[in-house]
């Protein structure tokens, strides 16, 4: 079976800054793939390219067998790419359920059904009790879950999670991890950017490490964390003993 998502030789330049250079990755159906790397490695840029916020300077992006390189974000969502934002972007003046309804409307034209669907997604994400609260009144960890719920309501094939576990307490993070597992169990492929290695590594099937805009290594999580190049990228050469 072909990969669900593939980037082929993707470059992104912002003026003189090269954020992604020749990035080729692929994500198989049903996988949970972690995209990791130090600050400024180009993870968020790659995410934005996959989500369609901007087109790459060069290279192509194949989703579900179709070249989506030039498609805007809304059309990629239509085709099954859902995403969250690193800095949460809730619709603050709307209630929690209304936030999720916006996502549900892309697959359901009838309001009553979209509302019902949104409610189911909220239950799935453990936010049903907060349905009638304003999004602005949620605590940060709930806002993160709302981001996930909203994206799930669009019924994505691929869910892009941008640091949803970062900045949470260990308990909250653990709930988050379970949610990601539950999402995968429903058949959704997950690509997640994450900072906190200890949390991500047990969760993902495969890890891709970006450094300085390039793919440094990819492989099984336990192999990746022991890779000398990865250690030196994160901690500096001094710590890469045996490299």
């Amino acid at each position, binding site marked *: 079976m072909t990969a669900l998502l593939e980037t082929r030789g993707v470059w992104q330049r912002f003026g003189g800054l090269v954020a992604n250079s020749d990035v080729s990755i692929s994500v198989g159906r049903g996988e949970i793939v972690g995209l990791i790397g130090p600050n400024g490695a180009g993870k968020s840029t790659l995410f934005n390219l996959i*989500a369609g*916020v901007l087109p790459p300077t060069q290279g192509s992006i194949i989703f579900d067998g179709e070249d989506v390189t030039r498609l*805007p*974000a*809304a059309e990629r*969502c*239509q085709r099954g790419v*859902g*995403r969250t*934002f690193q800095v949460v*972007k*809730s*619709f*603050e*003046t*709307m*209630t929690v*359920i*209304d936030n999720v*309804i*916006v*996502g549900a*409307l*892309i697959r359901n*034209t009838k*309001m*009553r059904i979209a*509302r*019902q669907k949104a*409610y189911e997604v909220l239950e799935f994400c453990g936010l049903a009790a907060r*349905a*009638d609260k*304003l999004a602005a009144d949620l605590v940060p960890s709930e806002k993160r879950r709302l981001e996930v719920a*909203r*994206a799930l*309501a*669009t019924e994505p094939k691929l869910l892009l999670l941008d640091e949803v576990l970062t900045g949470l307490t260990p308990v909250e993070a653990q709930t988050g991890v379970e949610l990601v597992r539950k999402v995968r169990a429903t058949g959704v492929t997950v690509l997640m950017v994450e900072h906190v290695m200890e949390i991500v590594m047990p969760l993902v099937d495969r890890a891709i490490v970006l450094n300085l805009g390039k793919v440094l290594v990819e492989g099984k999580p336990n192999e990746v964390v022991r890779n000398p190049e990865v250690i030196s990228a994160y901690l500096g050469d001094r710590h890469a003993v045996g490299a």
Partner: protein
Amino acid sequence: MDTHFAQRRRRDLIMAACLAVIAALVPLFVKDVYVQNIMVLTLMYAALSQSWNILSGYCGQISLGHALYFGLGAYTTALLFTKFGVLPWFGMLAGGAISAVIAMALGYPCFRLRGHYFVIATIVIAEIALLLIQNWDWAGAALGIDIPVRGDSWLKFQFTRSKLPYFYFALALACIAWFVTWWLEDSKWGYWWRAVKDNPDAAESLGVVVFNSKMGAAAVSAFLVAVGGSFYAQFVSYIDPESVMGFQFSLLMALPAVLGGIGTLWGPVLGAVILIPLTELTRSFVGGSGRGVDLIVYGALIVAISLALPRGLVSVFSLRKGAAR
């Protein structure tokens, strides 16, 4: 929770129906022409502000150039009637359609602008349109158009002896604008608009085509405002550029919604009911020396309300869990 939501929607509808019936009965007791005149204007501004609220309140694209569509409606109706003998009823629809098309044509470049830059563009475009009309000889230029009075008739939408027909038309217009808002609020468009207002990037990522959403809101909003303009032309039976396209109309459409509660269902109605009678009264009792005093009243009111109730007057009632806040 589904029923809770449906209940609230039904309650709004019932309340609107009751208010409309009460409003319809008022002229039976209030015979004073001056007061009736104020009631007509109040209803008209309620309708206009409700329409403005669709684009600027729900979709968040603050327009201070809606006088353009008001004027377009007034001019289309007046020109079609005086030059071609087209009945105002058709003029109204034509004015609405022309305004909707122009709103989209202007939106095409302007909706790429965000925030203050968009607001500035709307002001400038309306001012340009005003200047163009002032210099358009065929349309009466700065002198305007005198709509010939041919006797009382619903067909020609002219009434010289009584204000009541205008009152009921204005009431119908306010009801239609309210109902359209109510209906859109729980439609795909309503959700899309609010999402676009709160966070366009997030909206786009959820499949909302932000640009089209704005275009849709602009078209609906401009159409309804133009119908209001057509009505106003018939009501005053004489129009000139400054009196239907002046900047003050843009403000008078925005203010009731802003004071009442921007982006809410009841805000524009509430705002108009308080603001319009107040300005009319100050104008006639203290406004002899010019327009200064009623403007001072606006200013004072806006400052007072925005300090005390940043979410508008509707927040006092907190009728709408969520929507009003």
